[in-house]
């Protein structure tokens, strides 16, 4: 009898727990309107943009108020978002969704397909143009709104270049030979300890700031994985890897992580960064920016690079998804994109960027080159196991290129084989 009661209590407790779990955030009706919550990035400029955007929306929509907060602190935004998806308490919109994490969030059932909205695909493609294709999932649906990019370029310190006897106003950095020659001059002259110092650590995303921009440029816009296959086991992949290996072998790039900003501190004379850095470096560094190099040199107007984009996700725990979609469109409207550009210096992913905001680029000529570059960016591939793919690539790259163990063709071949398997998995 007692045993029966115990079993009964346990069964009831389990049932309550299961009901509690399943009811936590199973998603809402796509047509519902009402108050929503959003998260945005925690850097000062984006907070300022987010606050004014929410204020503007709330003023006109008293029945669909938006409550906004900075993304909660964590090791990375992706971990916080993944945990929120699992817990069922993700907000409606997150204005800091990494494209590399989207396949995983989609697999978790955490994202709403924006293509399911009547005007979803049309809105995305009309705003972003051909670049939007890179953000579509394997089935062609959009689970992320392409929002803003930070097309990375070579920042160089004009003072250190002058000290090394290089032309500081129009430095020769377009071919690999020129890049190596300039790098050697910088280090040999003692102008800086390193010519460039991309983080040599093992995190999966670090290759986005050394190998990938140069690979995008060398291949004229090829992603790491296309059509389910790794693309880098090629002459272009080998050329980029050889360049970086030479940089490390000759101590022109540092193998050890630097605590701080090596470019800002003058430890390195160059850096690969996006336009966000303009506000950060400000007057502290007398800087210039040029496109990343290619083996034979490419015209600046044709050079591709890595986008370093952050997008907007609409999360399935959202109850008022129609309001979320309307807010998303409001936040990516021409007016709000203009304010984003003005307040953060980051490039809205619009196909007509430089023509829509001519006044901004006229007033801020430093950003013009980034505005132009924004139309030729390559995103991380939107494929299954995206993070694992990048970690595998980083591990192989770190060994063969940064620490010079083994030969580069073997690294490219072995890593490509692993990535082919990962990319083809569900």
């Amino acid at each position, binding site marked *: 009898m007692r045993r029966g009661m115990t079993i009964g209590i346990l069964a009831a407790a389990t049932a309550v727990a299961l009901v509690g*779990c399943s009811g936590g955030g199973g*998603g809402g009706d796509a047509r519902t309107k009402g108050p929503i919550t959003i998260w945005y990035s925690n850097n000062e400029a984006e907070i300022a943009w987010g606050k004014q955007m929410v204020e503007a929306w709330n003023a006109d929509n008293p029945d669909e108020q938006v409550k906004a907060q900075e993304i909660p602190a964590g090791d990375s935004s992706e971990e916080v978002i993944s945990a929120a998806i699992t817990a069922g308490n993700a907000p409606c919109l997150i204005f800091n969704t990494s494209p590399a994490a989207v396949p995983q969030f989609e697999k978790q*059932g955490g994202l709403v397909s924006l293509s399911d909205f009547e005007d979803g695909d049309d809105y995305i493609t009309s705003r972003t143009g051909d670049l939007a294709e890179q953000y579509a999932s394997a089935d062609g649906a959009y689970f992320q709104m392409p929002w803003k990019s930070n097309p990375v370029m070579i920042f160089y310190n004009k003072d250190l270049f002058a000290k090394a006897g290089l032309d500081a106003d129009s430095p020769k950095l377009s071919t690999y030979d020129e890049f190596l020659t300039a790098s050697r001059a910088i280090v040999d002259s003692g102008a800086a300890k390193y010519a460039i110092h991309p983080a040599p650590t093992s995190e999966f995303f670090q290759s986005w700031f050394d190998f990938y921009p140069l690979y995008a440029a060398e291949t004229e816009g090829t992603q790491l994985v296309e059509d389910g296959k790794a693309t880098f086991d090629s002459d272009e992949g080998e050329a980029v890897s050889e360049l970086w290996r030479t940089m490390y072998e000759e101590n022109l790039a540092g193998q050890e992580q630097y605590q701080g900003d090596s470019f800002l501190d003058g430890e390195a004379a160059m850096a690969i960064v996006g336009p966000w850095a303009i506000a950060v470096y400000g007057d502290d560094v007398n800087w210039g920016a040029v496109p990343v190099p290619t083996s034979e040199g490419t015209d600046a107007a044709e050079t591709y690079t890595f986008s370093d984009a952050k997008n907007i996700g609409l999360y399935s725990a959202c109850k008022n998804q129609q309001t979320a979609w309307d807010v998303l469109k409001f936040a990516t409207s021409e007016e709000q994109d203009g304010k984003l550009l003005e307040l953060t210096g980051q490039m809205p992913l619009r196909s007509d960027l430089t023509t829509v905001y001519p006044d901004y680029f006229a007033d801020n000529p430093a950003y013009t080159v980034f505005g132009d570059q924004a139309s030729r960016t390559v995103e991380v591939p939107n494929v299954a196991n995206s993070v694992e793919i990048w970690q595998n690539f980083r591990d192989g790259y770190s060994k063969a290129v940064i620490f010079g163990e083994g030969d580069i063709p073997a690294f490219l071949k072995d890593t490509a084989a692993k990535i082919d398997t990962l990319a083809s998995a569900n």
Partner: protein
Amino acid sequence: MTTITRPTEVEAQRQDAPRPRRRRWLGSSPLGLLFTAPYLIFICAIFAYPIVFAVWMSFQDYFFSAPGVEVDRPFVGFDNYIAVLQDPAVWQSFRNVGVFLIINVPLTVVLSIVLASALNRVVHARAFLRVSYYVPYVAASVAVVGVWLFLFSGGGLVNNVLGDLAPVPSWLINSQLAMPVIALFVTWKQLGFYILLYLAALQNVPKELYESAATDGAGGVRTFFSVTVPGVRPATLLVLLISTITGANLFTEPYLLTGGGGPNGASASPVLLMYQKGIEQGNPDVASAIGVILIICVLIIAFIQRRLVRDEES
């Protein structure tokens, strides 16, 4: 005159019947259960449930999903374990943590017992010295790691002192030296806690034993090995177990000090790999399999340590 009426045997049996059953379930002091309940619940919720859940996950094709989303998580038998055992990075991480334990555990035991004995004898500035050893233990790892980076980076203090004798590549990017540096760092950081354990244990060593040893003409070293070391053996077992368990769970130091287990995974630990695979890459099933293997390894080491120290004791 008082008459005592004894209950009949049948009545006595009736009265006593529920007692053994209740006693069997609740023990002789049911109130004790009430007092221990919060901690038992804590242990079950924070340790037991996650371990059982992790073991279950390691046999499924599992990934975290949003509540209410129907996903297929089939039973996959030992597939995750096979994947883990075929992954060279996993083997390397276990070798790395083996190197770490070989350096860290003996060093921790030796240094903490020696320093605790010395501190126990100190008369002046005793509190200051004890606090000094304890400060690194309570300091945030992130802050302390910054100091060690300053010391052991390529252009750091240690290399400047060593000059031409500085290793190439430098400490933290040297595949032979990265893990030993981490082991030294952790030993230094945790030492204060173990010293405290030994200081507590030293208070229980009878003073008469020291007096007898002195009477027999034993010197300091002889007294240390013949009186102090045997006297704190239970504490030594505790230090061995705790340092082994915490060492096997190494994560923060390779994550921060060597930039994610570098160079080339030479300082990657199993827990760091679990973090990468389980949290970053969304494969908690594979991460759980690594965790289960790690638990088994730690249990085996702890069992051997216990047997060795007990055998010596007996």
